[in-house]
């Protein structure tokens, strides 16, 4: 590569990453600011942890976080099961009836604007309630179903691409040696795709934890999630407690991503040693 262009690329990278990280860093810095004005630094009393303590006593946010956590965990676990089945089917069965439809149905939720998905799910729940009486009202169940519908599409993509990069030789060998299909899946396939399932679970958890639009459509009274509470606060302007929440989120996500990628790098090295 010649020198001039690589300078160009390095400048682009530097500006691009600054663009991505300056907003995040500003939230972290101002979470320690004593002033209620948030962006005006109160150098006399800062840095301070006072907003961290006030967040820890904010019942509204804590309740919402608890609901979000429940929805996210159930959603992630359900999405992993549905997404693994779909990803496995799409990657390993060359031809089956409905393959095209399944493929389309797992790609569309990735790009579908959330307002459309949210509205259509709500109208489905209302229609179901009218005709068969289930679900009675809306709340955690309906939100979780809504989240699973788009989260499982992401899990499908992750699992499918992991399976596509592995050939079927190991699975075929096991079958030739007389293993039953279910046993092949649990003893050979599942360990191979385990990293994909783990990242799929985390991805589904995060998608659900962050979702505002689909939750707003499908939730009922008394089941406000964390993003719904944050959104109603943010609409009124900046709030120091939200900066604290953002800082905590960034910290957890960073630890999680770094941890998982170290673990995966180790697994990849072991893979290499094994072959």
């Amino acid at each position, binding site marked *: *590569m010649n020198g001039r262009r690589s300078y160009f*690329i*390095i400048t*682009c*990278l530097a500006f*691009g*990453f600054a663009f*991505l990280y*300056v*907003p*995040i860093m*500003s939230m972290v810095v101002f979470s320690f600011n004593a002033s209620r*004005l948030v*962006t*005006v630094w109160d150098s006399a009393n800062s840095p301070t942890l006072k907003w961290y303590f006030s967040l820890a006593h904010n019942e509204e946010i804590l309740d919402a976080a608890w609901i979000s956590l429940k929805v996210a965990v159930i959603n992630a676990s359900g999405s992993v*099961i*549905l997404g693994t*089945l779909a990803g496995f089917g799409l990657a*390993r069965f060359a031809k*089956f009836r*409905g393959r095209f439809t399944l493929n389309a*149905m*797992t*790609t*569309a939720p*990735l*790009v*579908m*604007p*959330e*307002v*459309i*998905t949210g*509205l*259509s*799910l709500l109208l*489905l729940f*209302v229609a179901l309630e009218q005709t068969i009486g289930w679900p009675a009202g809306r709340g955690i169940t309906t939100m979780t179903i809504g989240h*699973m*519908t788009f989260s499982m599409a992401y899990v*499908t993509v992750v699992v499918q*691409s992991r399976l*596509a990069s592995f050939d*079927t030789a190991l699975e*075929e060998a096991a*079958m030739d040696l007389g293993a039953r*299909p279910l046993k092949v899946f649990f003893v050979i396939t599942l360990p191979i795709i385990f990293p994909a399932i783990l990242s799929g679970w985390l991805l589904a958890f995060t998608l659900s*934890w*962050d979702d*505002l*639009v689909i939750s707003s459509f499908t939730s009922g009274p008394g089941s406000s999630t964390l993003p719904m509470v944050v959104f109603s606060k*943010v609409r009124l302007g*900046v709030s120091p407690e*939200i900066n604290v929440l*953002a800082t905590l*989120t960034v910290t957890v*996500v*960073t630890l999680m*991503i770094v941890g998982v990628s170290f673990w995966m*790098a180790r697994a990849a090295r072991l893979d290499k040693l094994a072959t």
Partner: protein
Amino acid sequence: MQRLGITGRGLVVMLPYCWLLLFFVVPFLIVLKISFADIDLAIPPYTPLIEWIGKNTLAIKVNFSNYAFLFTDSLYLNALLNSVKVAFVSTVFCLLIGYPMAYGIARAAPSTRNILLLLVILPFWTSLLLRVYAWIGLLKANGVINNVLMSLGIIHEPLTMLYTPFAMYVGIVYSYLPFMILPLYANLEKMDWQLLEAAEDLGCRPWQAFYKITLPLSRNGILAGSMLVFIPAVGEFVIPALLGGPNALMIGRILWDEFFSNRAWPVASAVAILLLIILVPFMMWYQSVQARESAGAK
């Protein structure tokens, strides 16, 4: 896999298939149905489409007035056109910022590459709502950017940036940038860089080699990234609602307001159907690009 047999295979695919059919496809049919209903002061707030009149008569009432309303009140078409414009401009900016970044990451040494990739993925995993919120703090009148510019003496009056179209564009480009970089990187990573060396050995200038080799070969990555930004951005709600101010006409926001503020479910449904009609061709295009990309990878 042959031994799995038809029934085994069927069982594996059946569960996700039925789930998506019930919770993803059927709901659209209901939206379509309700877009032909009339607003009613009832729970739920719309009239039934099929109704028993008298003992033996089944009446189907199809009401086109919601669609007629969308086309007579210029608000809706303007919002739709504006959304497409905003999404398109944002996609172009994402591409202009994202392409050099993806290129730089793909050509970095393997150890640096993983760290850079991690840095792209990290914001993608952090709440979109909180990252959009960060821009309020940066852009508002007594926000970080104005404070810095004023203390440097570049400006004397705070600039009005928050609640303008500018803020909305910044928010959309910022939020969707990782969706552009990741597919571009996945594509560029597979590139055979020796082609570029060969071209330069044969007397091509670097930018010519880029234009003639790298750019055409990364076409699928460009298309996939652009679709991942463009399609959801057309219906974006959160970013215009938080950064765009009251005048930011975006169709996702109109749909939200019709539904939550006006309780006009049939009108909201008609808006959703209109939006879908525009977006479905792009979704099909995206799917065929994905199919080509994964076929090329094998």
